[in-house]
Every structure is written in structure tokens, then in C-alpha cells.
């Protein structure tokens, strides 16, 4: 299953909290794509997801706009 979470325009802790909640409901192997444009969330979301053991990749869509792709594991 693939889920897209639009967090464009959301400031720092919100994308992370939303991603944490979304991941809780997902099964192993599911993919969550979080769209963000806040540079601080760009650091703490991938950092947290990697430390939690998920597979994380970052896709730069444009200047200052990213898709954080998290595969739950």
C-alpha cells in the first residue's frame, strides 16, 4: 500500500507527528510519501525515520521542496 501525506506549508514538528501517526496504522512494507517544504522538517523527519529503522529516501522535487519516501520495516 502506498500513502501520500501532503505536509506542504506545515512547520517543523507537524510533518513528523503526522508521519509517525500514519506509519503506526500501516503494515510492514507499506510506503509513505511525505511532501514537505520546511527545511527543519527536512532534517528531523528523515533522521527520526532512519533511527526508527525504516528505509528512507529523499526525492528533491524542486528548490526547497522534497518528497520523503519511507518504507515501513
Amino acid at each position, binding site marked *: 500500500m*502506498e500513502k*501520500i501525506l501532503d505536509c506542504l*506549508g*506545515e*512547520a*517543523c*514538528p*507537524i510533518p*513528523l*507527528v503526522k508521519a509517525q501517526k500514519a506509519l503506526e496504522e500501516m503494515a510492514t512494507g507499506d*510506503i509513505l*510519501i511525505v*511532501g514537505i*517544504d*520546511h*527545511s*527543519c522538517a*527536512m*532534517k*528531523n523527519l528523515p*533522521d*527520526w525515520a532512519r*533511527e*526508527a529503522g525504516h*528505509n528512507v*529516501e*529523499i*526525492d*528533491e*522535487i*524542486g*528548490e*526547497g*521542496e522534497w*518528497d520523503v*519516501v519511507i*518504507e515501513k520495516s
Partner: protein
Amino acid sequence: MSETTQTKIKRTGRRREAVKPEERKKKQLIQRIIGVIAVILVIFMAIFAQGINQKGAFIVLIGVGFGYVLQRSRFCLTAAIRDPFLTGGTELTKALIILLAVSSFLYMGINMAKFGLGLETLNLKLAAGYIKPVGLHTAIGAFLFGIGAVIAGGCASGTLMRIGEGFTQQWIAIIFFVTGTIIGKFLMPIVKKSSVLYTGKAIFLPSLFGGWLGAVIVHFGLLFALYIAADKWSRRKQK
């Protein structure tokens, strides 16, 4: 991060359309031109500030330097306090503790040079650093600031930095940031009149612990203990 990264995780859904390479090149060119203009403006601003204040140019350049480091390092004071509770990550918390240790060490050196090793000649009004009264007003203010910082998505420095990055939500935050500062300016004299809220007594650790040595042991000992605690916290939380 100027290149578009190719992701390896297989995605089934439609990908968000990335900005076309030609368009990005155009944007990057505009960014470079704006960058050059900004540097020239900063130089003029430094010259202008020097005319007003003897340390003007120095202050402008230090400020720009701070902004640059803040943006590049993604250092966030709000995250340093918030993340241990939110994610269990304490990397920024540890950085903040080191920052406090280094800066207080420097201030200690400046004040030692000013007043000597004894405390007989100490004059808190002339001492370097912000030696201000602590009390209930500090706790209330910190609590309010914390709520504001989390809602606004950053503290003062982080907000200013992201205004420059073009994060529009924080352009709204700056309006209220300035409004709050003005309210605070008028509220402070009222707070100062209350003996419960404001004791008016500044606490300077060397005076409190009978000299520099006591203060050094207590101050750096506390910071060290906090550092160890932060380190242990991140390990416990991530298990």
C-alpha cells in the same frame, strides 16, 4: 542537494511532478544573481552601520555569519528542547549544551580579565553577558515562549532564518513575533513592580558559590551531567 535524487524504493502511485531541469537551471541562475546582490547589499549595510555605531560593521557581519551557520547546519534551538520528548533524538540538545559550555567559558574569561580572580571589584552592571534577575517571571516567560515557538515552528533565530528561505507561514509568524515584543516592552515595567513576579535580584554564580572555582565546578558539572543524561536518554528512547 542540487541534483534530483533517484529513489530506489519502488513506488506504485503517481509521482509528484518534479520541476523540469531547464526550469531549475533558470531558478538557480536567478538565485545566484540575487545572492550576489545580497552580498553587495550586506557590504553597503556594514559600511552604513559603521557610520552609526563604532561596532556597526562588526555586528552586521557577525549577524550574517550567524544566519549562514544557522541555515547550513539546520541548528534549531526549539528542536533541541522539543525533540527529546517528540522523537527521543538528543543530538541538537547535546549541541546546545556544548554551545552553553563554550559561551559561558568565554564569558568567564572576559569577566575574569575585567574583575580579576577575586570578586571584590565585581560590578554586575559592567560584567559581560546578560546577568539578569531570575525568578517566577523567567519561568512564566519561558513557558509562554515555548508554546509560541512550537506553534510558530521555530524560535526567534529559526523563524528569521526561514523567512529568508521563503517559508511563507513564518512570514505570518514574524508579524506576531514583533507584536509580542512590543507588548512585552510595555508589560515589563508592570511586571517589575510586582514583588512576587520579579525579585529584581540578579544571580551571578561566582558570588553564589563563593568564588570562581565553586561556580566552575557547579556550572560545568551540571552541564556535563545534562550532557550524559541527554546521551543516555537518546539510547533509552530508541530501544
